[in-house]
C-alpha cells in the first residue's frame, strides 16, 4: 500500500507524465506501475482479505435460509443450505500467495485430449488383435481363457490408462511449475483462486491438483471402457476407432455447451465432465437425490460409476455371446 497509494493518487486525474522509463518507476511509466500493482497485487490481496467476511456472509445467509425454507416446508432447500453453511463456515485465506501457476493449471486441458486419443488408440487393439487372427475362439478353449483373460485385459487397460494419464498430469504439473517458477501456493486453499470463489470442497491447491488428477483419470478410464465396448462389436479397428472419435467429440461438445450451466444434472450425466473437473469443483452445486442434496461432483462420480458399470456389463454380455457360441462355459460367464 505504501507503494500503491502514491501511484493511485498520481494517476487518478490522468495527468501524470507518460515519459518512458522514468527513473522513479518500476516499469515503463507511472500508469503501467499503477496497473501492474493494481491487477497483480492490490486486487488479489483485496480479494484474499475480503474473503473471510464474504464466506461468513454466505454462511450466515445460508443459515437464515435454513429457517426460512423450513417455514416454507421446503426440506430439500433447507438441507441444501445447511450443507452450504457447513461448507463456508470458517473459510478464510490466511496468507497471500502467488497463484498464477494454479490459475493456468486448472484451466489447461489439452493434455487430457491427448491422453484420451492415446487411450482410444491403445484400447482399440485390446480385443481386436485376437479377433483379427481369430485367436479369440482358440483362447476360449484354454484353461485361463474366457473370463480370466477378459479380466486381465480389462486390468491391463485400466493400468495403461492410469499410466498414460499420470504421466501427462505429472508432465503438466512439472511444466507449469517450471514456467511460473513456483508452487508456493500449494498450501493455499482452493478458493484463493477467484473463479473458485464458491469451491465445493475445502482443500488446498496442492491437494486439489492431486484430486483433480485422480478424477480426470477416472473420467478417462470410463471413456476408455466405452471404447473397449465399442471395439467388442467389430472385427477390426477401423469403424470402432471412428465411432470412438465421434463419440468423444460428442461428449466434448455436450460438456462445452453445458459448461457453467445451472442444469446440474445435464452436467453430471456426461462422463467427460470428470475430465474437465474444474466445472464440478468451481461452484458448490447440488442435485436432489430423494430430497437430499448431493454435491455435483458426487453426482458426476456416481454417474460415471454407473456408466462404467454399464460399459463393463456390455463387455461381459458381448463376451458371453462369443463364449456361448464356442461351446458354453457357463461358470466362466457367471464369474464375469
Amino acid at each position, binding site marked *: 500500500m505504501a507503494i500503491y497509494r502514491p501511484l493511485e493518487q498520481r494517476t487518478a486525474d490522468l495527468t501524470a507524465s507518460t515519459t518512458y522509463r522514468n527513473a522513479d518507476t518500476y516499469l515503463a511509466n507511472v500508469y503501467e506501475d499503477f496497473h501492474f500493482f493494481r491487477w497483480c497485487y492490490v486486487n488479489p490481496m483485496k480479494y484474499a482479505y475480503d474473503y473471510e467476511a464474504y464466506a461468513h456472509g454466505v454462511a450466515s445467509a445460508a443459515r437464515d435460509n435454513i429457517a426460512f425454507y423450513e417455514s416454507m416446508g421446503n426440506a430439500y*432447500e433447507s438441507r441444501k443450505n445447511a450443507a452450504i453453511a457447513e461448507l463456508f463456515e470458517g473459510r478464510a485465506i490466511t496468507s497471500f500467495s502467488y497463484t498464477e501457476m494454479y490459475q493456468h493449471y486448472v484451466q489447461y486441458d489439452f493434455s487430457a485430449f491427448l491422453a484420451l486419443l492415446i487411450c482410444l*488408440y491403445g484400447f482399440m*487393439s485390446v480385443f481386436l488383435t485376437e479377433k483379427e487372427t481369430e485367436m479369440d475362439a482358440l483362447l476360449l478353449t484354454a484353461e485361463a481363457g474366457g473370463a480370466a483373460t477378459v479380466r486381465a485385459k480389462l486390468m491391463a487397460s485400466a493400468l495403461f490408462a492410469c499410466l498414460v494419464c499420470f504421466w501427462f498430469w505429472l508432465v503438466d504439473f512439472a511444466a507449469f511449475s517450471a514456467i511460473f517458477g513456483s508452487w508456493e501456493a500449494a498450501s493455499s486453499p482452493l478458493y484463493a483462486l477467484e473463479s473458485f470463489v464458491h469451491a465445493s470442497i475445502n482443500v488446498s491447491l496442492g491437494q486439489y491438483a492431486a484430486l483433480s488428477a485422480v478424477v480426470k483419470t477416472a473420467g478417462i478410464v470410463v471413456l476408455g471402457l466405452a471404447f473397449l465396448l465399442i471395439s467388442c462389436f467389430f472385427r477390426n479397428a477401423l469403424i470402432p476407432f471412428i465411432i470412438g472419435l465421434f*463419440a468423444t*467429440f460428442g461428449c466434448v*461438445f455436450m460438456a462445452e455447451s453445458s459448461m457453467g450451466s445451472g442444469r446440474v444434472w445435464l452436467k453430471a450425466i456426461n462422463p467427460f465432465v470428470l475430465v474437465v473437473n474444474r466445472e464440478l469443483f468451481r461452484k458448490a452445486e447440488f442435485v436432489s437425490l430423494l430430497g437430499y442434496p448431493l454435491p455435483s461432483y458426487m453426482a458426476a462420480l456416481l454417474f460415471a460409476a454407473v456408466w462404467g458399470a454399464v460399459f463393463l456389463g456390455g463387455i461381459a454380455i458381448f463376451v458371453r455371446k462369443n463364449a456361448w457360441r464356442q461351446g458354453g462355459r457357463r461358470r466362466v460367464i457367471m464369474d464375469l
Partner: protein
Amino acid sequence: MLGVKGGEGVSLWIYEMKKMFFHQKGLIFIVLYFVLSIAAMILFDKPVNPDIERNRSPYSFYLDQVRGPYSETTERFFADEARKISDAKVALQKATDDYYDGNMEENEFLAVSGPLENILQNEKGFKLIYDQYTYIRENPGNRYFLYTNGWNGLLSHDKLDFLFLLLLLLLVAPVFGFEFDSKMDALLLTVKQGARRHAMCKIGLALLTVAVLCLLTAGLRYTFYQLKYGLGNGDYPLQSLSYFGTSAKSSTLFEAFLWITAGKLFGSLCFAMLILFASVCLKKYAITLFSCTAVILLPYYGLPLESSKYFLPGPLGFMVSTGFFRGNEYKRNPFKDQMDVVFREVSFTAWSIVFAVTLCLSVAMFIVILIRRTNEWNVGKRSYGRRGFRLMLVLGLAASGLSGCASPDTNGQRDVYNYSSRQSFENERYRFYTDDTDPENIRIVFEDKKTGEKGGLVRNPMTALTRVENAIYGNGTHVYYMKYDFDKPAFREVVDRFSVVEVDTATFQESMIFEKKLSTDRSTMLGLVKANDYDAGFYLTISSFFLDDRSLYFIGQDEIRWVNRLTGKMSVLIRCPVIKSVAFDGRYIYYVNEKSRVVKYDTRTDSETVVPDIVTDYFVLTDTELLFLNRKDRQKIYALHLGNAAIRKLTDKSVLTFHYDKPYIFYVNQSDLKNYRMDMDGQLVY
C-alpha cells in the same frame, strides 16, 4: 475376386471399386456423410449476422441503393439519409404533438406523417448498413457494399469439416489396410497383376474418390448457402467481408471460393496419401487411424495462435485453406497497452514453401508406397450388415439424446404484465418489489401481505460472480427473474451465461427455465461451442422480460424479441424507436408505437391491430381495462374497457404519472406535484 487373372486393366479398376464401395460399405458411409452434413447444415447453421436476417427488408431497402463500391455519392447518400431520418423523427414528433394538441387537422396530419413514416420504417436497416459503411470507409478501395451473410457463411470461418475427416479415414484406410488384416500380401506377390500396377490402381481410385467427394462437398455447401442466403455479387473484392478485411491478396469472392476449394482438394488428397502411406507402413488400423487423426487434430486444437496451422507443412492448413487469404489481425492488450497478434498473414513466399514441402512429402509418400509394392487385396467374406445398423443405432441414440421434450400446453388465465411495473409484482400472498433503500445493496424483496414479513426473493447465498437484474415477471405463484453469471479465469471478469430463473413462491424452490451461453472469447477445451457476438450483445441490453408457456419475450432498447424456450431460436417481434409502455396479458402484447398509438399484438397469430381512439405515451393494463394518460385531453387518466371498448374519464386533472396498485390508482398531479390515491371510479381516497 481372385478371379482377376491379369491383362484386364479395366476389370482391375472395377474390382477395386466394387471392393471399396460395396464390400467395405463405402457407399453407405458416403450416403451417411451427406445425410449427416446436410442435416447439420440445416439444423446448426446460424447466420453470421442474425440482425440482418431479422431486419431483411429494411436492410435490403438501403443495400439496393448503395450496393457496389464506395464513392462520393454513397458518402453523400449516408450523410443525407442520416439527416433525413433524424429530421423525420423530429418532424413526426412535432406533427403528432400538433395534431393531438388540436393545432392540426387530421387530413393535414395524415398528409404530413405518411411520408415521414415511410422514411422511418427502414431505420433499423439504416443502422445495419451504417455499420457496414463504417467498416468500408476504413479502406474504400477494396471494400464494397454487399449482402454478406451468404459469403460469410461459406468462407468466413476456419472450421475443419470433422465429418469429412472421418469419412476420408473410413474410405481410404481400408484400401491397403484391409489386405493386411487377412495377410493377403504374401499371397498377392505371387499374382501377375499384383505388382506395382495394382498399387497404382488402388491409389488412383482412392485419390479419385476423395477428389470427387471433396468437390461434391464444396458444391453442396455452395448450393446450400446459395439457397439459404443467396451468394450474389461474387465479383466483389474479398476484403468486403470483414473476416478478410486486412488481407493483402487481391481476389474476388468467387475466385477466393474457387481457390479455397482447390486448397481443400489439395489438402484432402494429401491427407488421403498420408492415410495410404501410414496404412502401408504401419499395417494396422489402430495405429494408422491414430497417427493420421493426430497429425490433423493436434495442431488444429493445440496451437495457440490461429494462424500457426497455416505455416505447418501438411494437409491440415490446406484442408481449411481460408486462412491463406486472411490478413494480419491484432487485438489490444489492456495490460501491456500494446497490440497482440491474433492472426499473422501467410505471405505468398510462405505459402509457396508450405505448398512445395507438402507436395514433396506427398510425392515421397507416393513413391514409398510404390516401392513397398503393397499390392494385395482381400476377399472379405465377413458379415458387415450389422455394422451399418449399429452405427445408425448409435447415431440415432445420439440424435434422440439431443432432442428435447415438449412442454405441457396450458391455457389458463395469466397475470397481467406491465412494463411500468416491471420491478414489482403481487400475488395472493406476497408483494414483490425492488428494494433500493440501500443503494449498495439493491435487491428484489418479497413482503408477506398478511404478516408484513420481508425477505430477499433470490435466496442463493453465494452472490459473488452473479448479477441479478432488477426486472421480475410474475404469474400466479411463480415469479421469474433474470441473472448473469460471470467467470474470472484471469484478471478480468467475463460474462458467461444469461439465465431466467423461475421461483415457485409456495416453497421458494428455484428452477432454471432458460439459459444462454454468452461468452464469446473464452476458449473452452476444443472451442466447439461459441456464442454469436450479435446475440450476446442483445442479451446484455435486456431491460425487462415476460413469458408464456412456449416463449420468452425480451424487451431490449428499441425492440421486443421473441425466444423459443426449447430451442433458443430468437426473432424480432416488435420494433419501436423508444419502448415507452408495454403490457402483456398472456396472449396479447400492448405497446405504444412511434405515433403514440396503442398497438395490440397477438402472439398466437402474429398479427397486430391499432387500438382505436387512444393516443397516449403511458398506459397500464389491468385485468379488464386499459388505463392511460390521454394525450388528446391534457394527460388526464382515462380507462378503456377491453371487452366493449368503452372509454371513460377517471380524473379531471392533468396527471404527470400514475401507477396502479389494485384496487387503487396512485397518481402525481401535474399542477401541485403531489401524490393522490383514487379508486377505479375516479373517487379520491384519503
